[in-house]
């Protein structure tokens, strides 16, 4: 459903992506792993058009993303940002229901609020949180509000940028389950970035490893342990020694 072909992106003289090829079939959950600063977040932003690639082609359902009508294109996506990116000028429930309060999906306020509270419950937040402002929440709570916002309008494709970072192990388990549930039950196509290997095993159908600006390895999650790829092995076992330099 989503195909990236030969994506290049540099910031100034710094080459971040040097030819990323990636294919995510409909209804599958792809997890991207890779060292910090290798360009995982930039890759997601390229697909959404928040960052314009210098070179390469991105297709969604065979349609060139660069030429798609922006509103209808973006309406199919939900995105959880690494930093949450909550609107701090409005209370939590309005953040979650942002799409439901304006534009083509607009519905009555009371109904939008009800949906927001329900989504908050799904990410493990009580209804009292709904009327707080983002600045009054802890980091992990903000992350979960961002997650609730990403899934609120029930998009077909959802990107999660580090959904479990900053959460306690139990909450991380809840979120992993939630993501799995969304993919299996709602047929959502998901792309998740994570550093947490237990999360990879819980969420992924397929795994792709980004290193040095290219996809070094990709395949089904079951093949991950027996890949024989020294880069992947070093990464999943968290070894300091190996082909990946520890200073980057």
């Amino acid at each position, binding site marked *: 459903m989503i195909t990236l072909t030969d994506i290049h992106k540099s910031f100034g003289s710094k080459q971040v992506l040097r030819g990323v090829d990636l294919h995510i079939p409909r209804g599958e959950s792809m997890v991207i792993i890779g060292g910090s600063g290798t360009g995982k977040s930039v890759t997601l932003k390229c697909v*959404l058009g928040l960052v314009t690639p210098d070179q390469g082609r991105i297709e969604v359902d065979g349609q060139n993303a660069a030429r798609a009508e922006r509103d209808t294109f*973006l309406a199919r*996506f939900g995105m959880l940002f*690494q930093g949450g*990116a909550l*609107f701090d000028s409005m209370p939590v429930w309005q953040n979650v229901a942002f*799409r439901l309060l*304006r*534009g*083509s999906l607009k519905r009555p306020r009371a109904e939008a609020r009800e949906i927001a509270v329900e989504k908050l419950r799904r990410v493990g937040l009580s209804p009292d949180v709904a009327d707080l402002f983002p600045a009054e929440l802890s980091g992990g709570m903000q992350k979960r509000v961002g997650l609730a916002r990403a899934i609120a309008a029930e998009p077909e494709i959802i990107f999660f940028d580090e959904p479990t970072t900053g959460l306690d192990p139990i909450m991380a388990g809840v979120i992993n389950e939630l993501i799995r549930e969304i993919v299996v039950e709602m047929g959502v196509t998901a792309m998740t970035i994570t550093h947490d290997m237990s999360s990879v095993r819980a969420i992924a159908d397929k795994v792709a490893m980004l290193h040095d600006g290219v996809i070094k390895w990709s395949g089904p999650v079951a093949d991950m342990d027996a890949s024989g790829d020294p880069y992947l092995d070093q990464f999943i076992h968290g070894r300091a020694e190996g082909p990946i330099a520890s200073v980057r």
Partner: protein
Amino acid sequence: MTVVITPLALFGRWALALLAAIGRIALFAGQTVAHIVKPPFYRREFTSALLHIGYLSLPVVGMTTFFTGGALALQIFAGGARFSAEAVVPQIVAIGMVRELGPVLVGLMIAARVTSSIAAELATMRVTEQIDALVTLSTHPMKYLTVPRVLAATLVMPLLVGVGDVIGIMGGFLVGTERLGFNGATYLQNTVEFLQLNDVVTSLIKGAVFGFIAATMGCYYGLNSGLGAQGVGRATKASVVAASVLILAANFILTGVFFSI
């Protein structure tokens, strides 16, 4: 040779950068106007901008123009006394406030109060990826953030300037009647008879233009801010400087256009 060339090259580079910035700002202003007429229109954001830019600016506008009107009356009285023309205080205060000081002072206060807050808010949104989040939620940042603020500032500034003009004249009136021995009724009559409709209308037009400049600069520098806390600081500073200079320049041009004929 290089002693001559280096400053020249520096000046050239500076001039080019300035022209490029002017071009980008003009383009941004044009896009803003284009987005005003194209739906959707975010009414809630517009109302909130009206409140923040208009209503909540009233105290600062009132104080600024009140003290300036008072000081102006004192100065004109003292200056006029040198050629026994003390009696012109009401007329000069009125014309000075309405034609120049009202719009310019209110414009500069709005640049300080509103431009800076818009720029800091939007720059922080940029830095914390809230602008990116808006885009992914199918909301155009120009329509959602820029249009309500620019439209509100343009519409509400004539009102603020009108209030400022009146309060400025009142400041002059109080000083004139309490300190300088003018008769209240005569002072008011002189003011009202001397002012022409033209003076008031141009005052309000200046207000609208300054409001547009102030909000547009805040949005432009906020949305195009650099990264990090430093980026927010730079954007805020640049927006206030640009808004103030542009307001003064626009005032000069508008005064020339309105009163040269």
